[in-house]
């Protein structure tokens, strides 16, 4: 068949590496990372956690403030599940979409339960004698992230 403009696709042709060799390479990398975690050769760990319908990038000794009420007293330790990403200097563990609970452990304590500053919600229409003023005070909680730990149980 002769070559036309549609014989070859518009993207440049790329060959993927051999699947067998790839599997070997992946196993090597996983073993290396496991060894590094087991011997403790990482510095500061950071994690991306999904909490209170928001995603936070947290490290240890971090303060987080959320605009809602948690059903925990001040001084309670909380374990955060739903960890999306964990990383250190040399390696990162990306979850699809979440990482396993036996891999990562994020501990936090509730420090403060306060109210936000009084926000003013005002609506006003010109020449229609319409104005409404409402003061909104949101309850807030402050958490401190104590530790992030990882365990060498990759496969």
């Amino acid at each position: 068949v002769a070559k036309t403009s549609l014989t070859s696709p518009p993207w440049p042709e790329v060959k993927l590496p051999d699947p067998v060799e790839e599997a070997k390479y992946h196993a090597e990398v996983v073993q290396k990372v496991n060894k590094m975690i087991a011997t403790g050769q990482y510095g500061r760990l950071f994690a991306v956690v999904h909490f209170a319908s928001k995603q936070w990038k947290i490290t240890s000794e971090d303060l987080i403030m959320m605009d809602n009420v948690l059903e925990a007293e001040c001084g309670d330790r909380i374990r955060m599940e739903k960890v999306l990403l964990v990383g250190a200097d040399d390696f990162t563990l990306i979850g699809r979409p979440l990482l396993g609970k036996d891999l990562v452990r994020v501990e936090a304590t509730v420090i403060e339960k306060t109210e936000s500053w009084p926000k003013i919600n005002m609506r006003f229409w010109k020449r229609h004698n319409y104005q409404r003023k409402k003061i909104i005070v949101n309850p807030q909680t402050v958490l401190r992230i104590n530790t992030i730990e990882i365990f060498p149980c990759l496969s």
Partner: protein
Amino acid sequence: QHFRGRKNRCYKLAVRSVRRAFVKSTKARREKKRFLRALWITRIEAASLEHGLKYPAFISDLLKSQVELNRKMIADLAIYEPKTFKSLAALAQRRRQEGFLAALGDGKEPEGIFSRIVHHY
């Protein structure tokens, strides 16, 4: 502008400008979310262009490989965690190539169709 002119001294003018300030702040609180999202998107686009990917390709490949980070996080990672962003870009590039290969299929021609070139004279 901290109520310029007589708006910071005279009651009648001050009442009007304070009312406008309250209304503008309530509307701005709703616009802030849109504005921040656009900012994150431009940052992610710039960062992914440095790694040779365009923003729509990057985001679609990340979603297809089941990584559900939102744009705020990816922008923060790109700023403070360049190595992590590079690995995310590599993941997206690999998923893109796999998608291309899957779209090509076998490479054979469909049955019952013949192709020939028509010459115009």
